[in-house]
């Protein structure tokens, strides 16, 4: 998939279908350690150890309408091709925790992408669900929790156009602020790298 947020959406739709009423997504970017970690937890019906073992197999699905379940294997392939891994821990009746890791600067790592659209797509599910999204970049944190919004809104549904727009712009603005912080560092890094390269070529010359 072109964005990691699409893999995250896929995992969250799985959670909704597993009866979850609340999901948490934690995205941690650590530029010094060069790692990206995505953790998705839900309070759905969970899986037995047998099912957990099978879920990474693309030819396994609980569905009856088709015979392949590509979502988790695709997510795992994305992590593995970036010197990372995907692990799933689950307990029947309690919920599931999925952790995917990546080398942050890996050339094949897809961008995180449009998390605002991913979260909105989940909040517009047929059944009422809530989710918390925490994004950390080098210790800076952006946090979104739909239960807080629901509390303020009372009976107004998330599908209301003004609420949808509020959610999208709240997340987009928060993400942009986080990015601005890390972008400054990246630009500095690029400038330093350039100077280094120049010095080397001058020395060689």
């Amino acid at each position, binding site marked *: 998939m072109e964005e990691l947020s699409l893999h995250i959406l*896929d995992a969250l739709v799985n959670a*909704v279908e597993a009866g979850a009423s609340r999901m948490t997504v934690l995205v941690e970017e650590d530029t010094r350690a060069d790692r990206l970690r995505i953790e998705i937890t839900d309070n759905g019906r969970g899986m037995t150890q047998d099912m957990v073992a099978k879920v990474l197999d693309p030819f396994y699905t609980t569905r009856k309408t*088709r015979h392949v379940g*590509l979502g988790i294997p695709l997510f795992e392939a994305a992590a593995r091709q970036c010197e990372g891994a995907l692990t799933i821990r689950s307990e029947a009746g309690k919920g599931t925790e999925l952790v995917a890791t990546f080398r942050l600067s890996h050339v094949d790592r897809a961008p995180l992408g449009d998390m605002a659209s991913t979260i909105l797509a989940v909040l517009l599910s047929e059944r009422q669900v809530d989710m918390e999204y925490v994004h950390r970049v080098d210790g800076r944190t952006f946090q979104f929790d739909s239960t807080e919004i629901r509390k303020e809104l009372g009976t107004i549904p998330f*599908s209301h*156009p*003004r609420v949808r727009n*509020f959610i999208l712009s709240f997340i987009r603005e928060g993400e942009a602020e986080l990015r601005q912080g890390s972008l400054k560092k990246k630009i500095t890094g690029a400038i330093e790298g350039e100077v280094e390269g120049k010095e080397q070529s001058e020395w060689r010359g």
Partner: protein
Amino acid sequence: MARLKSVEELKKLRVEAQRDLMVRTQTGTRIIVGMGTCGIAAGAREVMQAILRELESRKIEAHVETVGCVGMCAQEPLVDIEQAGKARVRYANVTPENVPRLIEEHLIKGKVIQEWAIGRLDARKIQ
């Protein structure tokens, strides 16, 4: 501070949104977007965004919902449109570019786009 500001914004939004809520709940139009792995990989999230944008720019009242895989993976993205008292119509291979025509013809003119539709479910059978 940012958080306090957003809570105030939400309180204001609640009062304003409450006024038109009654009208909205009575319109009975649902647009359902398949959001399984197959749908997501084929661009369903972008189709959903295009639908939301189109509804907003034309000031159309409709409930947009997402569901998991519908079972016709090769035809994704799939979008169902259901209007009160009418048959539910399923459209296949929907792209963001198709969305304006879909909204214009199906929702505004009330005409099913035959070449894009792949199924129809009788209103009584949905209940």
